[in-house]
């Protein structure tokens, strides 16, 4: 099970990469307990008061067990960095890097399944518990503490919606970006489970996108297992079919692997949410109102 608290100890792999350094600074500024960085060949240096080690093993020997690692290494080194972290016993692995080859993710996902590791991403902004801890690269200014849990695929869209919620007076309990790539670690369903159990979360917003089937799976799961009010939004309703829209997950083609089933379109996803009786927002600006309504209704229910 996910072990992630406000005081979780965090490691940064690839801390000497340009974006790794930015990310480390961002997390530290937010108050995250960043205990060490790893960058082979840079062991012994210090970056932003964070000690840098050549390997994860050495870092853990110096600072003790850590709860999570954030990986910023180049795409073709991500699999190795993640396997190194897993071999050292780290069970929460965030991959910020974009452009990891899918077959590397196939290997990593298998290893994660075998070892019970949470892999978030690749191409993920990470997790933020506003006011408490940031694991990843969310811009702090859009987030405020509250009771809405957010699950999405694409970073900037999560930020947009968090910003609109914040402006509407709806703070967030936990936001997670599962990542925009074709093959990602943790799924919508797994995060629905987490948020359903999370005491500070009272409503859940699912930010879907066209491509893949994770929204359809999430809709079914909500109908079956989620008690808290959930609302959904799906980006890409006007997207041209068969075009690549930015990341590989967002291709709609009659993928042979799907054996012709009509899945992955905005229509199919919205239909699945409706089928599961999940209110659907057609534009981001409708989300705050839907959340308010849902909270009122469930509060009403709770009172009964």
């Amino acid at each position, binding site marked *: 099970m996910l072990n992630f608290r406000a005081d979780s100890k965090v490691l940064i792999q*690839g801390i000497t990469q340009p974006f790794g350094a930015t990310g480390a600074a961002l997390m530290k500024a937010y108050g995250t307990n960043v205990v060490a960085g790893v960058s082979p060949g840079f062991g012994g240096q210090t970056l932003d008061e964070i000690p840098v080690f050549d390997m994860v093993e050495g870092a853990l020997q110096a600072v003790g067990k850590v709860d999570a690692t954030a990986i910023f290494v180049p*795409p073709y080194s991500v699999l190795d960095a993640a396997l190194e972290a897993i071999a050292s016993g780290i069970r929460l692995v965030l991959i910020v890097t974009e452009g990891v080859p*899918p077959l590397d993710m196939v290997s990593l996902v298998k290893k994660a399944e075998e070892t019970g590791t949470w892999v978030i991403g690749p191409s993920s*902004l990470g997790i933020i518990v506003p006011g408490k801890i940031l694991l990843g690269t969310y811009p702090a200014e859009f987030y405020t503490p509250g009771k809405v849990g957010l699950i999405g695929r*694409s970073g900037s*869209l999560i930020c947009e919606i968090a910003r609109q919620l914040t402006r509407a007076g709806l703070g967030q309990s936990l936001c997670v970006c599962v990542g925009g790539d074709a093959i990602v670690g943790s799924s919508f369903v797994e995060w629905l489970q987490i948020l359903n159990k999370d005491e500070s979360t009272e409503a859940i917003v699912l930010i879907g996108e066209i491509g893949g089937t994770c929204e359809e799976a999430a809709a079914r799961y909500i109908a079956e297992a989620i008690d808290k009010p959930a609302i959904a939004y799906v980006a890409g309703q*006007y997207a041209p079919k068969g075009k690549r829209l930015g990341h590989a997950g967002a291709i709609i083609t009659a993928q042979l692997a799907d054996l012709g089933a009509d899945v992955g379109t905005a229509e199919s996803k919205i239909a699945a949410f409706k089928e599961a009786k999940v209110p659907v927002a057609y*534009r981001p600006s409708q989300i705050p109102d839907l959340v308010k309504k849902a909270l009122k209704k469930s509060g009403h229910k709770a009172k009964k």
Partner: protein
Amino acid sequence: MELLEYQAKELFREMGIPVLPSQRIDHPSDLKGLRIPYPIVLKSQVKAGGRGKAGGVRFVENTIDAVAAAHTIFHLPILGEYPQVLLAESKYDSDQELYLAVVLDKDARRPVLLGSQHGGINAEAALDKIQKVVVDGEFSPFCARQLALKMGLQGELILSVSAIVQSLFQLFVQKDLDMVVINPLGISASGEVMALDGKVTVNDEALGRHPELATLTSKMAKPHKQKETPALPANLNFVDLHGNISIVCNGAGLTMATLDLVGAAGGEPANFLNLGGETWSAATPADLCERLEKALEALAEDKRVKVILVNILGSATTCSATAAVIETHLKRREGAGRPRSPLHFVVRLAGSDLDSAKECLAALKVPLFEALDGAAERAVELAEELNVKTEK
């Protein structure tokens, strides 16, 4: 990125998958130096499907007919695409035609072996006939035999076909493919197997570690039907459409949401362009600004574009940095004598340092929005106004 048939067959040959003797024809006159015996088949090397029905595949018996056929095929567009190359190949008599493929099932997050006894032109239509084996653990040849048995093969064919599937899987993994298909796999009366046509889709993200594939794809001529797209850096995701509003945004999800809002307001996008989020492994705020600058420069050349809707949700990149890029762009074009009215821009910014961005854009008379809905609606309105003007 999809390879052409002759390139796919080159990879098959390297893996020991049997293919027919063939020769690449760059020009009809190449047929005079043909090294394979007649009769041959000439095949248009285009990515589009249905080339057989469209007349892109011809059997010929001698040089004179071959040259004539080649001329015809070179001038025959298939779904708007002209071939740069033909493939001349020996003829083959199949008794039976199978379908074989290895694809990545992105939901199961596992490679999948596919096969059917009903191969040939209509194989992909008969999807319900295709058998499937998910490679859940490590691949071992018995997975390929599982597929062969599921396909209903018997006797020696179990061995010969599963050997091909095994090679296909190795190719798939070694070259980081998204998909590899043999269709049809011809089976002769004597039980010999032969890959008669093939399709290889390489994974774009893995291309960097397969220089031999990168060379292939870069050599591939641009299909003629494609409109001149602005010269953009490779890491920008640009999609061309048919309207008059350009959308420039950062992040795939936000780009799609913006596109949806423009669409919902009745607007017609000319194209949209995702500058990329800020998770690009080597990206810095400066990179995002540079990408925006190049994007604006490229889009300015597109005559169809009436309005450019810029929607940047900044993180490390401040609003004022984004505004500064727009300012520089407008001033440079003015300096170069190719001004573009600032009114054609609709800008939406969110993030830090918004006030100085406001000042900067106000000075340029570029409308700035904080709310996304408002920006999208204004862009559509503006495009309509400008359209009316043009029509007048």
